[in-house]
């Protein structure tokens, strides 16, 4: 979303450092799940903290929960970038990553959902987001994960507020198509 690369300000560094201190274990685990390589995972966390620091003004306006989501997704994004740089021949570096979500303890209700299509699509969603064009990804994450207003999204993207809804509709459409393709590919592979 940020089109220019800026050095992080003091407040951004402070907010990023606070987020790291509060969630560092979770952030490292997120990177490890993507990369399966401890030194690389630490690199990913390092890069993510720098990215977070650069977007300090956005962190400032987020609730604690939203900031944690944002930090987790930023680490994941940094990890995906590192994985792609390491294996540029792969179009989707996480294609072969096992479904880390299966590792989580589940309740009987969730186990039931595991057999449901919605659960399967939910499992696929992180890969779809990773594979989207950056603008589409930022739009969907901003709107649905970080609960940003249309005005805030417009400001971040440098577009008019009234065009945000149209861009969101298009981004969802592209994401759905991508998800269908991935579902089809996965089905072929089974």
């Amino acid at each position, binding site marked *: 979303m940020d089109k220019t690369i800026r050095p*992080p300000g003091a407040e951004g560094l402070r907010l990023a450092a606070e987020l790291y201190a509060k969630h560092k274990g*979770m952030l490292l685990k*997120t990177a490890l799940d993507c990369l399966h390589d401890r030194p690389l995972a630490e690199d990913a966390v390092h890069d993510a903290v*720098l990215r977070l620091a*650069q977007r300090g003004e956005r962190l400032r306006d987020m609730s604690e929960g939203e900031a944690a989501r944002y930090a987790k997704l930023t680490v994941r994004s940094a990890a995906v970038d590192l994985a792609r740089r390491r294996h540029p021949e792969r179009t989707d570096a996480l294609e072969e990553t096992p*479904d*880390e979500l299966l590792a989580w303890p589940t309740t009987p209700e*969730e186990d039931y959902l595991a057999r449901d299509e919605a659960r399967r699509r939910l499992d696929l969603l992180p890969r779809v987001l990773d594979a989207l064009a950056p603008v589409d990804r930022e739009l*969907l994450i901003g709107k649905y994960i970080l609960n940003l207003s249309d005005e805030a999204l417009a400001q971040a993207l440098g577009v008019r507020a009234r065009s945000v809804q149209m861009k969101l509709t298009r981004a*969802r459409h592209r994401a759905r198509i991508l998800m269908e393709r991935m579902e089809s590919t996965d089905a072929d592979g089974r």
Partner: protein
Amino acid sequence: MRTEDERFESLLRSYALRLDREIAVEDAAWGGRVPERLDRRIEALTLGAGAAEAAALAGTGLRKASTVGKFGARLGRLGLLGAIKGLVAALAAAALLLGGAYLVSPVVRETVENAVSGLRTAPEPSTALPDSPADWVIPSPGADFTLRDEAASGTMQGRWFTSEARECMVQIAARLPGGSSLGDGAEPVEIGGLPGEYQDTGLTQVLLLRAGDTLIRIEFWGAERGEVIEYAERLIESNE
């Protein structure tokens, strides 16, 4: 009836909820348990803002700024320079990286070159996690460790360690984030007289044992069932 687009919107919102759950579980399970070197790196990153800023202002991209920050962090990690010297060296390294070596005083340049030379000859830092703080007990089978003391604390304990090239986490507490059951699909087991459950998710192998009111959760990455069971047996045996 909802349209495809509405269903997809709902899916995106569900993902936000799932993220919250993951964050809660991971925060509880991992807490602040990261290698000390990562803490130092992030601290150096904060200290190295000047270096990053210098690189960015000089027209380099974020990547290079990050590299400069990492370089500063490495210097600090190796103990070759103190925090202030590390920052100065990182700035000097930025100038060197940017081809600005001529702008750096000979003294600073010598300091950086010595540091780089030290980096080349220093042994690779271990990728193993540092020794645990005093309040982390356990891990390797045979270590002196008492279940009762752990349970009395009422809080989750655990530690990462490498055992036979496997990564493992042991948690012991009256309550664990995942609850007292692994859910459907788990295989009932009894190890060292303790009842429990075993589950292989494909990514992790989890063993949950109950010792009275205490739960013991042992989680391996990439292990075989036999290895997990054997490890648990040794762990229980060594603490009987």
